């Protein structure tokens, strides 16, 4: 299941969905907006996305991960819009028969979302806004590992 939404993600609701199947292992990852960056306190972040493309790219990765790691359940939810520090940004849940596949799939999906899904972050501080730059290390990780 994939979703791109403005509102906060209800984590316990998603965990419940993840655990519904008869599975052996479930892993989740929750990305949270940080309160600070290198230059100080963050008031909020703003996430922009490319609506028609975002769902397609996330769907691709859901299909790929489900097949590669034999997932029984895969949930990917990413938020956009204004997000305050401490609020969730992204939820990835993977459930399968064995923990190894659940961990690997979850890590892969979040790595992929960072560099291959059309989202852009802006960090708003008191008197400035910072366009977050992509991290080369993250881009290389996807190239090397997958």
């Amino acid at each position, binding site marked *: 299941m994939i979703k791109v939404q403005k509102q906060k993600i209800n984590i316990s609701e998603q965990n419940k969905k993840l655990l519904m199947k008869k599975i052996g292992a479930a892993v989740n990852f929750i*990305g949270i907006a940080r309160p600070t960056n290198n230059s100080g306190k963050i008031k909020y972040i703003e*996430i*922009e*996305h*490319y609506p*028609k*493309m975002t769902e*397609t790219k996330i769907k691709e990765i859901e299909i790929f991960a489900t097949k590669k790691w034999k997932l029984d359940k895969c949930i990917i939810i*990413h938020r956009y819009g204004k997000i305050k520090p401490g609020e969730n*940004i*992204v939820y990835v849940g993977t459930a399968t028969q064995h923990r190894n596949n659940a961990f690997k799939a979850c890590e892969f999906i*979040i*790595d992929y*979302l*960072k*560099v*291959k*899904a*059309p*989202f*852009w*972050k*802006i960090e708003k501080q008191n008197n400035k806004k910072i*366009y*977050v*730059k*992509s991290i080369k290390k993250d*881009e290389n990780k996807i190239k090397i590992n997958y």
Partner: protein
Amino acid sequence: MKIIYFSWLKEILGTSSENTKLPSNIKNIENLIKWLSAKSIKHKKVFLKSKNIRCAINHQIVNKNSKIKNKDEIAFFPPFTGG
């Protein structure tokens, strides 16, 4: 052709999209960037950083040699920063 801009490109240009009719000599993304750069100072400023700009044709990531047509939707944006 519809051209869409995201993130800091949108801010510099002061618009998120524009509709334009391509001259017949504009065949690929590289031609399009050169042509757009000559359109205004703001466009020039954006595409000066073209090494840091990615592109999609009809929602598919492409490289700068990719062919374009008048009915395509083209998007320009910086590298993604999701997650």
